[in-house]
């Protein structure tokens, strides 16, 4: 009855990738021995390891195990948190990612790199151990002595805690107190069980255990006392400060959290275990996944073959498990059979010679975790496991209450709601028409019902849209790593400031914005920021600043990428543009116009092709990508003070704010973001080229015009109009006027693809369904310009613009 695990692999991978992200961001945030952060990283690594083991990705599990061991040492203070170590761990994260990808028909992981990183990890592990390795001779001893490193200022507290038998009755739970103590520092708990009576005479509501606690912490006595504040009348408590002379407390401590301790497990199932459908060998497999396992079978209970009942289990087993897992994990494996067996887990019978102090240790763990546990054993059992388990228990991972849903389902939901909105609009229209014809209370009721329906559908639509929205931190999260790596490579000191990362954006937009953002940030690091020397010479702080700022503005999300570097070199850009033939000398360009040239195809100012920005991908690709999402990118620069790239994006690709226009008797939709303004131009402002009105002179600028009627091959207007309605739109820094017949209202529309049942049509971004159920096409300004703007007109417009500017500037000179 094996379960097909493969169905869970997807979930495992997803969780693992998330775990890796957590590890990465936490590692970057880790600047000192911040226990909480290390714990977070450890937990992430631990669950990846566990999952990988379950699914048989042994390479991942093995590799992660080494990482985990190192993290564990960092956690217990045996390894200091140093930048090289953090870098090594970051590389390990990459390796794990590679290994995970390799399991899913990704490219095979680079074995060399993996081995190399693994070796270095191992070295890091061995590094502090070298002087101690002989004492144990096994990996087990790795962790033995280093606590002394942790911090000399720390104190050792010896706490004796002897609760009165009635303590439990007043609702106190010793385990919680120990957890609280654990938060203060490193804790070693020893339970003294001498007073515990026989099982037969045991009162499960009384407590008979005395604890001896060794706490290594820099806390004050008051802090410890505070923990016991509530029980001080119900226990005998003594708190004594000891000297931290030796590694001995450390040894004791390492007993508990030490990696790879050896546990002895006795497993004596009831004869009827098999009858309940349990299979011991599965349990053993699960155990083996935790670490090295030795199994001994005790067959003394077996009768002669002729008396043997094949349905009864008469064997018992003895395991030696060498693993760093908390005891909990072991008991978890036996969870399903605990009522049908006798189980004893003995911890920490160390291979190495034990210092005298630790002699008490086995006593603590010897407390049998009686699986058929009667209540009295529970406090003790909890106690004995808590030191190992509490790092996880004490600070549970922040559980966000969320569920995983496939995006397909959400898309289907959004579509359905979109249709609902259309249906609602249709009903509303019918209701209006009806109320014009008939009157009466029924109509009024209908009307108010329809109004309610409208409100509800709008709300529903907004809510559903919000389901797809995720905070932009999902994109931003990868930048600290990027900045860390890139600045390291460039030898620059960079501080990355991220604000507004909670700003929400549609998932589809987010997926596509990542790469352009990476490019922009790289660009800022590479070209924007100066080297430390240059900065100092310029009187700036050595460390450069790159700031990412996200915020909402009128239906768009704006992302600013601000650096305090040297700014754009306008002169150099101009020269380069001349060289590349992007501009001509007779053009008179403003600084900002020159700066915008960096977005032109075939433009790259990097003098040396660097590993970073000179990948043959220029800013034109960035602009194209952003504009394909219906967004804009602009640059502002202040020489010597830095530059700012501003990316504005629609919040979602599923809906769009549109301006409805009429051309002939067709309705089209122009994305509102593209519209600069709409004007009624009279004939005098149109300047003809070859007899046709193709240029609009507006605000000292010549704007080429596209007549949508002729572009769409619709019947032309009969007579020459005295004035015409023009929507001035902008794309890629270029303005164009669209001649339209009428402007209708503005409306939020649901974007429907034309490709699904038809094909992509140049000039149209898609279609939508209007309130009356009819289809309206959505104009794609970039495509439209490509289709409708002939080069001749565009060039003339440009020439005339340059001409005007020169005239202006000449006038300026004269004046």
């Amino acid at each position, binding site marked *: 009855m094996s379960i097909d695990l493969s169905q869970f692999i997807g979930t495992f991978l997803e969780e693992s990738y998330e775990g890796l992200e957590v590890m990465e961001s936490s590692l970057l945030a880790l600047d000192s021995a911040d226990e909480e952060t290390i714990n977070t990283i450890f937990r992430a690594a631990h669950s990846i390891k566990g999952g990988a083991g379950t699914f048989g990705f042994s390479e991942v599990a093995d590799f992660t195990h080494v990482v985990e061991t190192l993290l564990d040492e960092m956690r217990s203070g045996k390894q200091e948190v140093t930048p090289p170590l953090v870098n090594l761990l970051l590389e390990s994260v990459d390796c794990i990612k590679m290994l995970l990808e390799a399991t899913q028909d990704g490219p095979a992981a680079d074995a060399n790199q993996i081995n190399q990183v693994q070796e270095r990890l191992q070295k890091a592990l061995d590094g502090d151990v070298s002087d101690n390795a002989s004492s144990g001779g096994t990996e087990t001893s790795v962790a033995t002595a280093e606590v002394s490193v942790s911090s000399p200022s720390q104190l050792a507290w010896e706490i004796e805690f002897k609760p009165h038998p009635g303590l439990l009755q007043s609702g106190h739970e010793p385990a919680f107190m120990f957890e609280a103590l654990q938060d203060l520092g490193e804790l070693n708990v020893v339970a003294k069980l001498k007073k515990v009576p026989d099982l037969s005479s045991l009162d499960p509501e009384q407590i008979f255990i005395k604890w001896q606690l060794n706490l290594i912490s820099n806390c004050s006595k008051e802090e410890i006392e505070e923990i016991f504040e509530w029980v001080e009348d119900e226990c005998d408590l003594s708190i004594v400060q000891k000297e931290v002379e030796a590694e001995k407390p450390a040894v004791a401590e390492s007993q508990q959290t030490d990696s790879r301790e050896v546990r002895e497990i006795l497993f004596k199932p009831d004869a009827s275990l098999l009858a309940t459908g349990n299979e011991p060998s599965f349990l053993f497999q699960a155990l083996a996944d935790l670490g090295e396992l030795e199994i001994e079978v005790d067959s003394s209970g077996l009768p002669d073959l002729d008396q043997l009942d094949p349905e009864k289990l008469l064997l018992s087993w003895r395991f030696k498990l060498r693993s760093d897992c908390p005891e909990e994990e072991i008991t978890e494996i036996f969870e399903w059979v605990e009522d049908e067996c006798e189980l004893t887990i003995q911890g920490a019978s160390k291979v190495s010679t034990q210092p005298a102090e630790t002699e008490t240790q086995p006593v603590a763990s010897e407390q049998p975790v009686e699986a058929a546990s009667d209540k009295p054993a529970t406090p003790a059992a909890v106690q004995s496991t808590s030191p190992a388990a509490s790092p996880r228990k004490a600070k549970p991972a922040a559980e966000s209450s969320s569920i995983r849903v496939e995006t397909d389902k959400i898309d289907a939901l959004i*579509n*359905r709601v*979109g*249709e609902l909105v*259309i249906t609602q609009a249709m009903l509303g229209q019918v209701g209006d028409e009806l109320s014009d014809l008939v009157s009466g209370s029924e109509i009024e009721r209908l009307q108010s019902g329809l109004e309610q329906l409208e409100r509800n559908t709008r709300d529903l639509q907004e809510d559903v849209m919000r389901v797809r929205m995720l905070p932009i931190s999902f994109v931003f999260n990868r930048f600290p790593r990027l900045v860390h790596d890139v600045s390291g490579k460039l030898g620059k000191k960079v501080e990355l400031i991220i604000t507004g990362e909670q700003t929400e954006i549609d998932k589809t937009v987010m997926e596509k914005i990542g790469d352009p953002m990476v490019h922009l940030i790289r660009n800022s690091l590479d070209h924007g920021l100066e080297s430390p020397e240059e900065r100092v010479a310029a009187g700036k702080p050595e460390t450069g600043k790159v700031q990412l700022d996200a915020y909402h503005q009128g239906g768009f999300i704006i992302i600013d990428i601000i650096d305090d570097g040297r700014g754009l070199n306008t002169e150099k850009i101009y020269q380069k543009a001349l060289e590349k033939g992007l501009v001509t000398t007779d053009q008179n360009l403003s600084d900002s116009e020159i700066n915008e040239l960096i977005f032109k195809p075939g433009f790259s100012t990097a003098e040396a092709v660097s590993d970073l920005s000179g990948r043959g991908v220029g800013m034109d690709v960035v602009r194209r990508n952003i504009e394909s999402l219906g967004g804009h990118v602009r640059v502002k620069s202040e020489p010597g003070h830095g530059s700012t790239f501003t990316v504005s994006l629609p919040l979602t690709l599923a809906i769009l704010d549109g301006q409805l226009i009429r051309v002939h008797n*067709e309705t089209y939709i122009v994305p509102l973001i593209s519209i600069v303004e709409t004007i009624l131009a009279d004939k005098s402002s149109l300047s003809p080229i070859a007899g046709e009105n193709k240029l609009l002179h507006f605000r000292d600028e010549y704007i080429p015009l596209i007549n949508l009627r002729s*572009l*769409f*091959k*619709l019947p032309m207007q009969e007579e020459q109009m005295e004035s015409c309605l023009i929507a001035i739109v902008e794309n890629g820094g270029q303005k164009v006027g669209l001649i339209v017949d009428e402007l209708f209202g503005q409306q939020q529309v649901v974007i*429907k*693809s*034309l490709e*699904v*049942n*038809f*094909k*992509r*049509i*140049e*000039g*149209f971004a898609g*279609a939508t*369904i209007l309130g009356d*159920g*009819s*289809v*309206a*096409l959505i104009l794609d300004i970039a495509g439209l310009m*490509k289709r409708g703007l002939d080069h001749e007109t565009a060039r003339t417009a440009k020439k005339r613009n340059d001409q005007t500017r020169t005239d202006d500037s000449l006038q300026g000179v004269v004046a």
Partner: protein
Amino acid sequence: MIDATWDGENDSLETQVDGKQFLSFLLDEEEYGIDILRVQELRGWTAVTHVPDMPAYLKGVLNLRGAIIPVIDLRERFGLPTLEYGPTTVVIVVKVDSGSCERVMGIIVDAVAETYTLTPDQIQPSPQIGGVINAEFIMGLVAQGEKMVVLMDIDELMNSDELAIESSAQTEG
């Protein structure tokens, strides 16, 4: 490929043991048949939204319960004289296998005629010449009494020319 589902239905429908059903429609007094399993639904004529710069036979796009589907006038597609759309004008919504995907499209015909169940041996190969329709769109011919029904290959037809996913007319700069 359809046979498996077909057999089961045949038993209950008491039609011929072996065969495929076809829906026939009228176009300029000729009768044409298409595989009935490709027919999603029949609709009356409603106004469509014109798509600029498309051949005349491509009448535009239609809102089919939220999906945008193209609508093709078969008369114009085959160069037959056009007809004013009237109450009997029918849009047959068909599912078209376009290789990588299945597309839903509408075809405008004069009227829907009959359904036939045909065995493979009833279907004669298409003639190489003659007729208003390109031979490549014809799957075969069937004699029904005195009439001749032309069976159309809907996939060939609806993936040709402007309707192809990768249209040659689309210029990539």
